[in-house]
């Protein structure tokens, strides 16, 4: 029995997803090395990949339904981590770049709970919306979804980590959308946001709720060539220059890259895609985007094949989160979205990001593995 199960597991294991994810991380590690050859980020990334692979396998070979049952426990645990971050405990909670968003884990390094909590929130949402349904989404259910998402968001907002908060919304939106939300509400919401977001920005500017530096960041992306290239426009401008310099095949001739000369800020983390663009050019970037497209498509296929709604929602919540994060990050690097500290999944250096992404992929594989199991 065990042998048969193992054989089937091996057969049904989504090798493609795992291989794509590992390949991207390895590629990313190489780029991290390109970005900061003298620093240890790339070595840490490899260690992170090792830890993440173990976590992925553990999750993949665990029955996701058992995890879903325990979702509230994980969810609450995640919230506790977020609270822990906010409590200034010397040696454990860390303040980096003015943001109190990190925990120090002895032996591993810094850990950003907000990345990890994304997964627990996704599971919680999947559990709540995964029950068999017979009609369209009710208001009550929507409010409940909002509450599940709202708790971690509120805590993260207390960390002043607006960028992370942004990546939470698509998780809920995808789950709601796939939970038989009425199409007219969907369309209504889209139309409303097209009207409300610019209007809200305008009101925010008028009432000074949107701070000056936030306004400047918006202005920069509207006209990067004429922005203050030394002030608020610096990141965007240098990132665009770095990307553009890559050309078709990448600027391999120069031993002095934008990142090694420190023109490009945060080259190993938030701006890793710019480094990729500089070193591998248009071709390399297209291949990377294609890899992401393949990975996401494959995950969506897995979701479609899922044997129950919960499994499907878990995978799609993950897909939504990943896709949105990729778009936000690359859009920022390419200079048409404002600079917000969102890492590029699987590419940016950072244990939290790699680990939570692999845990999420582990879930997807777990769902995929059990599509024929009753």
């Amino acid at each position, binding site marked *: 029995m065990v042998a048969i199960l193992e054989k089937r597991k091996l057969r049904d294991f989504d090798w493609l997803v795992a291989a794509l994810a590992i390949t991207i991380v390895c590629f990313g590690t190489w780029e991290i090395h390109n970005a900061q050859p003298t620093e240890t980020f790339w070595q840490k990334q490899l260690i992170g990949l090792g830890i993440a692979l173990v976590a992925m396998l553990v999750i993949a070979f665990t029955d996701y339904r058992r995890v879903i049952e325990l979702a509230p426990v994980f969810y609450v645990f995640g919230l506790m981590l977020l609270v822990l971050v906010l409590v200034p405990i010397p040696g454990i909670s860390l303040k980096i770049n003015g943001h109190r968003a990190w925990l120090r884990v002895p032996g591993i390094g810094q850990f950003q709970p907000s990345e990890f909590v994304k997964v627990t929130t996704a599971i919680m949402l999947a559990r709540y919306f995964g029950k068999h349904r017979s009609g369209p989404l009710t208001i009550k259910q929507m409010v409940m979804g909002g509450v599940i998402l709202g708790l971690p968001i509120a805590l993260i907002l207390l960390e002043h980590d607006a960028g992370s908060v942004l990546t939470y919304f698509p998780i809920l939106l995808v789950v709601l959308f796939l939970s*038989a939300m009425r199409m007219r509400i969907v369309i209504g919401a889209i139309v409303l946001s097209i009207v409300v977001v610019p209007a809200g920005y305008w009101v925010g500017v008028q009432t000074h709720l949107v701070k000056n530096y936030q306004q400047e960041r918006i202005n920069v992306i509207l006209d990067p060539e004429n922005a203050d290239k030394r002030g608020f426009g610096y990141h965007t401008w240098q990132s665009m220059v770095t990307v*553009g*310099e890559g050309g078709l095949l990448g600027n391999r001739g120069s031993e*002095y890259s934008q990142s090694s*000369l420190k023109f490009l800020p945060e080259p190993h983390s938030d701006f890793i895609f710019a480094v990729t663009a500089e070193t591998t050019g*248009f071709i390399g*970037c*297209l291949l990377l985007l294609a890899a*992401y497209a393949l990975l996401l498509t494959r995950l969506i296929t897995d979701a479609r094949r899922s044997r129950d709604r919960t499994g499907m929602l878990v995978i799609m919540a993950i897909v939504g989160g990943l896709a949105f994060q990729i778009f936000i990050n690359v859009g920022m690097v390419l200079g048409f979205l404002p600079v917000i500290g969102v890492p590029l999944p699987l590419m940016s250096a950072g244990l939290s990001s790699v680990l939570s992404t692999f845990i999420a992929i582990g879930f997807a594989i777990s769902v995929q593995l059990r599509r024929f199991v009753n």
Partner: protein
Amino acid sequence: MKFVDDSQNLRGRLRLIQALILVLLAVLSVRLYVLQIINGQHYAGIAENQRIRLLPIPAARGRIFDRNGQVLVDSRPIYSIILSREDTKGIDRYSLIKPLSEGLNIDPQFLREQFDQVKTQPAFESIPIKEEASPADVAWVEAHELELPALRVEQTPQRRYLPDGMLAHAVGYVGEVSQEQLKQQEYRDKGYKPGDIIGQEGLESVYDDYLRGRDGYRKVIVDSRGRIQNEVERIEPQSGQDLVTTIDLDLQRAAEDQLRKSPQGRGVIIAMDPNNGEIFALASAPTFDPNLFSQRITTKDGRAEYQKLLTDPDKPLINRAIQGRYPPGSTWKPLMATAGLQQGAISIDSSNLVCGGGITIGNKFTRCMGGNHGSPNVHFAIEHSCDGYFYRLGLKMKLEGIQAMADEFDLDKRTGIDLPHEVISTTPSRELKARLLPKDPEWKDIDTVYSSFGQGEDVLTPVALLRAHSAIGMKGKMYTPHLLKEVRAIAAVGNDPSRPDYRPERPARTFDRPQPKVLPIPTDQSDLVVHAMWSVVNVAGTATGIKMAGFDIAGKTGTAQVVRLGKEGSEHKDHSWFVSYAPAFKPEISCVALIENAGLGSRFGAPSVRAMYDVYYAKTRPAKELSPNNVAIRIR
């Protein structure tokens, strides 16, 4: 799918999400295409620009020597501390005033001025903070590299001139190229840019093209904070060509000493080799310190010093040798005599004219300053500076004859000396009179009389007068006075002549107009005038006081009335002239002295020239006199 909820079309919604993801990724790809393929070159250029910087390596300017190889002007390296404008763009520069003024011991006011200045001058990349920085200052900058990365230490050559304003008017000075110069095409074609050093006066200016080196540069890669990471390319500078002048420093020193000791401390002494026009000494007093322009002009004190020079009534910046114009007085007479003989107004055999103690033109009597000389010949008239003789010679030659003389001796032209801003002497003419005396514009005989003994409206530059007299001593050969003996060659820099940074060899050259103007003066006529001038010093003339054993000086004194006649006070005394050459019958050196507002030529001009000849004699004749035998005899 086991949980299909067809009413909500789950399959469709999944496809929609998938499509949305692919669309977003496609948007990113398009954006990538725009940045990397369409504008790739543009951004590559920007990236290249921000990491490559060209740092100039200033080339040493050529040195200037006297004819015996003594250094007159050189450059020494000084360390200056500059603030990179580029690296301080985003920050408030004024916040740096306190740390900089304390750390480098600079006047905060100076820094404020420098920063103010930069605002209005966009062209300058670097802001000078401190020139002539001490080793301690350099160490301070290095120690604060982290806090103040925009500070740099630059080694620049600074021009150093002789002390006490020695040779200031001849050598001139360098300074930063001015805004006005940069507007001119000529300077732009030569590659001058703001902040470059250029010869602004004197030889520094005339031979700037040779003296100026060709800067090298370092192409370096810098990081985002401007710190140099690596040197990509280094083009060595090519030094400027050394310039050997015709100046003899000993004679120059003697000339300046004489002027310094003169009654007003104002005047000119020029010594020249009449055989080729090489200037041995050229002194104009009062003088100024050229180091002011090369070293201190950017400081507050320096600017005040410059203002003082500009407003000084004695006009120290004027080079009196070529820019001062003085009535020639009696120095005019040998020229008149030469021309009179040449034009046939008098002849060698029959040159006697009446002196009569003066002349009456109309109802006005103009007397001869020397009394009544009877009816002297031309030799006597020159020897004793007889005015009455020359009144009548002038009347015989007429204005046209005097003008022909002026034309022959080039007195109505520039001498062509290789110094800038030479002025043209003014010689007698109807136009001159009409212009100067509009109430009495007609040329009359009395004007001819005045013009014939050097007290008319005509004024001469000392250099023009010296050149004309030298021509008499040289039997009609009149050379162009010049200070350039040789521009020395300098080797090429670089190996590959096809490269744009190759600096070809710059060849040596000498003065470009060495040929004399030959005046058609018959030798017997010039010999007569020379002999008369010799007598002035050696027989019974006006300058016998400077007679020198073993060295035949020929010369002529002159006392030029200052225009404001009738006023008392030393500043209105006559100018004292002495123009001469020696040895009289085979000249090696000619010399003119003009001592302003001193009095008689014989009392001030002549002794100054004698002092020059003493130095010259000691330099050129001692070999015989101080041979071991002679020394032994002396001791005994």
